[in-house]
């Protein structure tokens, strides 16, 4: 610990940090890779990978969670029925092939016959049936998986390796959602015999097996030697290369970066944006920055049912008044890509044509506010109309990381005479407001899913949050035209129709401006240069761990 090299490194570090009064590093250039979903060449077996992760989610049962961590934990322990290919089309995994009936309501899956779970249970049609039932059973209390398969009506075991799923209505996202980690295949034996144990003793068919799980501290996994059914798209054969994975929970962003840089860890899944430039400048580290599919980060979701945002001109003007590039810079230190559309670019059926009409334009914003009648100015410089000031209250949670963003937005709006008041509420009151619709605007909001059905989830009239049901449509938008487009898109499997419907939906959203998209949903990870073979999940853009191997020569 107190070796000469430590002192040397420490001395250099101290000097660098304190000697100059300039900011130490400039921003990271935006370098978003494409590809990276396929293993290029085989690796060497052996070794332990030490990973730092931001938070513990408190359970390891993907069916019962909606947390982000599941995206990569899922791939460590479990496999799914299907896997998206590099173009985003569902392709075989545990299901070798499938037939969809012409009316889109029946899916017949042909399953692999060589897959077993780590407790010995066999993977077959019966297992799929049990899994789907588990996802939607109220007792499982699924906050995501169950909802994603809501149109699933019943399942039938045709023969040992053929499963038939019948839906209530045609549902085009069905195969896509089945590729997501939350809908992984768990051992039917454990589901049937002891479902409560799934949270701490999860049993899957994946390339690793859980060795130990200490809540709030960490978890460790060991290789499953007989694993041999990676998704064909990844190009990986056989078992994982690493012997062990060791995960530790490190909530502090700076500590995650510093401990990676000092070699205490080999890999971190949550690099703070402000450290990205430092990580890139460090020769001993590799940084990757990828964009997730789904709806991008929104600055604000307007409550379109309440003033002042019930007026379309006010919504539009507010959106145009935000300096998207500046905010993306503040939030991302150069790692976040600004976007002015309601779907991220990498999502299927993304349509770029309508995006630019939401670009930063303060002059147009001012003109629209004038047109909406907010011509007067009060003593503080804010616009008013009939003695009433133009403004809104926005509730923010007390997490400190999002504050600079909303402060900048408030500042942008002040320049055009709009008074955005920030209200830090405890989460209980925030939820209350959200359910009751007693807010003018909600801050933040991002939805990741691997299908453009994300628009349905975020903007369809049936998805408004309330006491009786959860929902992500915090804009409380209920536009018949948009509703119809999104419903029709759910009910067809024809690619031409889907492209057209989603393009219209995106255009309609740009017209309605229920929220202000700001920047993409990025996942930034970093690892030591001795870590090789990292590939990314086609659904989630999170790392796969079975292809990773350690190049000891480069350590």
């Amino acid at each position, binding site marked *: 610990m107190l070796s000469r090299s430590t002192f040397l490194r420490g001395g250099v570090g101290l000097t660098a940090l304190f000697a100059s009064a300039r900011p130490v590093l400039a921003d990271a250039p935006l370098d978003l890779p494409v590809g990276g979903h396929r293993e290029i060449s085989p690796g060497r077996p052996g070794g332990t990978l030490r990973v730092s992760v931001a938070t513990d989610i408190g359970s390891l049962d993907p069916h019962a969670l909606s947390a982000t961590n599941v995206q990569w934990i899922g791939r460590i322990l479990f496999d799914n029925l299907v896997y998206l290919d590099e173009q985003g089309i569902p392709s075989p995994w545990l299901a070798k092939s499938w037939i969809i009936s012409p009316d889109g309501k029946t899916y017949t899956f042909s399953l692999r016959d060589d897959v077993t779970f780590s407790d010995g249970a066999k993977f077959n049609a019966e297992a799929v049936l049990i899994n789907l039932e588990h996802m939607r059973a109220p007792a499982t209390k699924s906050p995501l998986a169950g909802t994603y398969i809501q149109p699933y009506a019943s399942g039938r075991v045709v023969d040992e390796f053929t499963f038939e799923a019948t839906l209530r209505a045609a549902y085009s996202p069905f195969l896509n959602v089945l590729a997501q980690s939350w809908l992984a295949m768990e051992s039917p034996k454990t589901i049937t015999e002891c479902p409560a144990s799934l949270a701490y003793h999860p049993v899957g068919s994946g390339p690793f097996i859980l060795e130990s799980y200490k809540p709030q501290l960490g978890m460790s996994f060991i290789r499953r030697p007989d694993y041999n059914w990676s998704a064909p798209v990844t190009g990986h054969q056989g078992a994982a290369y690493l012997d062990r994975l060791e995960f530790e929970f490190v909530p502090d962003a*700076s500590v995650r970066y510093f401990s990676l840089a000092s070699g205490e860890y080999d890999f971190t899944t949550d690099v703070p944006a*402000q450290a990205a430039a430092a990580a890139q400048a460090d020769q001993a580290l590799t940084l990757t920055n990828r964009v997730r599919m789904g709806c991008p980060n929104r600055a604000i979701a307007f409550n379109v049912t309440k003033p002042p945002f019930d007026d379309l001109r006010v919504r539009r003007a507010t959106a145009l008044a935000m300096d998207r590039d500046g905010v993306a*810079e503040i939030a991302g230190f150069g790692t976040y890509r600004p976007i002015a559309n309601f779907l991220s670019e990498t999502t299927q059926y993304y349509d770029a044509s309508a995006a630019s009409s939401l670009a930063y334009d303060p002059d147009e914003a001012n003109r629209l506010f004038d047109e909406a009648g907010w011509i007067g100015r009060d003593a503080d410089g804010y616009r008013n109309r009939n003695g009433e000031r133009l403004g809104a209250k926005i509730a923010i949670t007390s997490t*400190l990381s999002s504050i*600079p963003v909303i*402060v900048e937005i408030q500042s942008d709006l002040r320049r055009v005479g709009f008074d955005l008041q*920030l209200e830090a509420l405890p989460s209980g009151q925030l939820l209350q407001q959200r359910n009751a619709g007693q807010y003018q605007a909600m801050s933040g909001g991002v939805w990741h899913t691997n299908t453009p059905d994300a628009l349905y989830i975020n903007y369809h009239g049936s998805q408004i949050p309330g006491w009786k049901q959860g929902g992500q449509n915090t804009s409380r938008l209920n536009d018949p035209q948009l509703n119809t487009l999104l419903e029709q898109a759910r009910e067809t499997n024809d690619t031409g129709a889907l492209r057209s419907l989603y393009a219209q939906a995106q255009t309609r959203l740009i017209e309605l401006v229920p929220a202000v998209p700001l920047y993409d949903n990025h996942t930034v990870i970093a690892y030591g240069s001795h870590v090789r073979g990292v590939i990314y999940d086609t659904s989630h853009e999170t790392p796969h761990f079975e292809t990773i191997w350690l190049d000891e020569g480069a350590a």
Partner: protein
Amino acid sequence: MSDLLSLSRPLPGLPKIGQLRSHLRGINPGLLVAGAYLTFLAVATIAPGLLASADPLATDAHHLFSPPSANHWFGTDENGRDVWSRVIHAARPSLLLGGAAALATAATGALLGLAAGLSPRLLGNVLMRLTDMLQSFPEILLVLVIISFWGANNATLLVALGLAGVPRVVRQVRAQVVTLQRALFIEAAITLGLPRWLIILRHVLPNAIKPVLVLFPLDIGWKITAVATLSFLGLGASPPAPDWGAMLAIDRDYVLNGWWLTAIAAGAITGTVLSVNALGRALIRRNEGHR
């Protein structure tokens, strides 16, 4: 922490410079500095515009984390705002809230202590058990629970911080009242036929609250620390209002981008607490006579 000092002997005063000029009676250099700093803070509280011309809320997305320069004496922060101005403007909420909370503690504690000491036995016991309940709950946790569930606005902050020190004051005052009731001069007043309420007002009250007044300045120091700690934990004032604790909490994540921000916020809080404590101790010493 201030209640611990009530356990110990009279506090040592701060060191003096030798008798340079006899009529100055020996001025402590430290006290001078503390006094000057507090005067500066007083100006910052009353009229921040005199000390800082920049708008503490004006952001600039294209000049983030600028180092200290002629334009921005303390540089700019994560939103491009002028840090010097924010530090100055943050004085008011910290000092006012700290002072108000200390006052609330003293007043509430004194009232309850008087009530406990003067009431009939049953009521007095009930009050003391309630005090025990409050005291058994660690102060920070009490504040955490109140703020996390009721939100962080001036009212809840005042209640939460004010409640925290009440049991100590209640005990002190009650102990004084109980002792005083047996004191000779009270007996004398009763014998003289003075009405009870007059005795309480004229004799019991002033003597009972003396220990409270004596420790009051130190309690302000503790309250200011508590305000800063709360903000640091994310439970303080709403953004974008300037606040030392909140600045420290946010800037701690940006050590790689602007390390001086953390140092400045830490220095502001530490300097204030130190100065208040130093002056508080000097006042206490003066009150108890020199050693």
